[in-house]
């Protein structure tokens, strides 16, 4: 039984503490992240949710004066032990940010960027990857006739889907999304949400969101963070119908935070 549980998890975080200088930003986090599921992280501003998601591919290392203790086990390997190949880690654990941030290059080159960095040069192979990635994010039909056009000419929603395609092009196992729709209109938001539901067949997704309806619509499990602590982690249907902790209830019903 124990083995089955372990195999279901991509990440197992044990007693993770994080400090920005003196500020204790994450406090004793224990958090399993299940394979091919969508995990949503909710909580008020400053609760540590973006900090937490950035620890999963060690993007947090770019922030000065960060110190961490505990374990972040990725497929059984503790990525905090200093031996992790960061390029390899970030290839496997891709990230998408709040606002689409395409490179000032063509649509094609944006998606081909990652594979090229990882040494893929053959044009037909690159074309294959770009096509597949754009199809995966349902952008192919919209851009197939203008792959050489500048990516910055796309709409906000298209740019965000392009960035997801760019993240998928390196064939990651996990996709981290930090408020991926907060800058998008409602229809573009729903397209990304539909995309998330389709992508979870192949990928493990962790999404930080301020939009609680979004968390309830797309995720399998939801975590509620408050002041650096993981207050509650449970099935999304349980969290939004009958949460165990009063603080979770207060937050999701909009009565504090």
């Amino acid at each position, binding site marked *: 039984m124990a083995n089955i549980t372990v195999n279901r998890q991509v990440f197992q975080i044990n007693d993770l503490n994080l400090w920005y200088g003196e500020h204790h930003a994450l406090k004793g986090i224990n958090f399993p992240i299940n394979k091919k599921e969508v995990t949503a992280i909710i909580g008020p501003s400053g609760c540590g949710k973006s900090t937490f998601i950035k620890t999963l591919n060690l993007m947090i290392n770019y922030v000065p004066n960060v110190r961490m203790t505990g374990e972040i086990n990725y497929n059984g390997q503790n990525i905090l032990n200093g031996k992790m190949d960061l390029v390899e880690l970030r290839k496997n654990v891709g990230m998408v940010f709040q606002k689409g941030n395409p490179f000032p290059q063509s649509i094609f080159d944006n998606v081909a960027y990652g594979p090229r960095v990882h040494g893929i040069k053959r044009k037909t192979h690159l074309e294959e990857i770009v096509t597949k990635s754009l199809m995966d994010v349902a952008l192919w039909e919209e851009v197939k006739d203008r792959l050489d056009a500048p990516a910055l000419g796309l709409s906000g929603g298209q740019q965000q889907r392009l960035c997801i395609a760019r993240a998928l092009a390196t064939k990651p196992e996990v996709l981290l999304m930090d408020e991926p729709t907060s800058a998008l209109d409602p229809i573009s938001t729903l397209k990304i949400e539909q995309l998330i539901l389709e992508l979870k067949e192949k990928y493990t997704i962790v999404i930080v969101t301020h939009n*609680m309806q979004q968390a309830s619509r797309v995720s399998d499990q939801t975590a509620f963070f408050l002041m650096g602590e993981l207050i509650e982690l449970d099935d999304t249907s349980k969290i*939004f*119908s*009958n*949460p165990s902790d009063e603080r979770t*209830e207060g937050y*999701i*019903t*909009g*009565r504090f935070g």
Partner: protein
Amino acid sequence: MNTRLNFDSNLKQLKDMLIEMARKSENAIKESIDSLINQEIQKAEEIINNDTIIDELEHEINNKAIILIAKESPVARDLRKIVVSLKISSEVERIADNAVNIAKSTLHIGKEKHIKEIVDIPKMMDLALEMLSDSLNAFLTEDVELARKCAKKDDKVDEMYGRLIKELLGYIQKYPAQTNQITQLAFVCRYIERVADHSTNIAEHVIYLVTGERYDLNA
């Protein structure tokens, strides 16, 4: 700062509307039994006609609940409050329908002399209405213990119902010419027994509202 003042005030209004509807239904049951005992044809007709007021209240409650769901995206206890209001309004509407049924039985019996003084039916009604009152108070105060107590009384109503039906059926042989009256009185017992059942259902909804768990009080 109460960040959901407007929503909370709407939830309170929903609750108040439901209580108003329930009080009207409770009253309709009492009046219907009075009309039966005193053979008041006009009162029975009024009860039947006034049922539309209760039906209208149910529609208003349902509309308000639907609008709150659509506009406020309720979750957790807020969502349960609204869903439970929808459920309870339906139970209360059925209770009022039983008042109509009793009034119709009054009309069927008409002015025919009662085979005996009607004593046990009002007692059974008192018990069923006590259950209704308990379940509504449990809803008002979100009191799980009171909800559970309400359900316990249902056994007593069922026991009374069984006894009265047996007694009434016994009268058929004794008063064959009054079979219609006896049958109507048996129906009335059944209607009161249904009021108790609906009250138990309300109590179950209250338990769900408070705990988030389904509970079968008749199990």
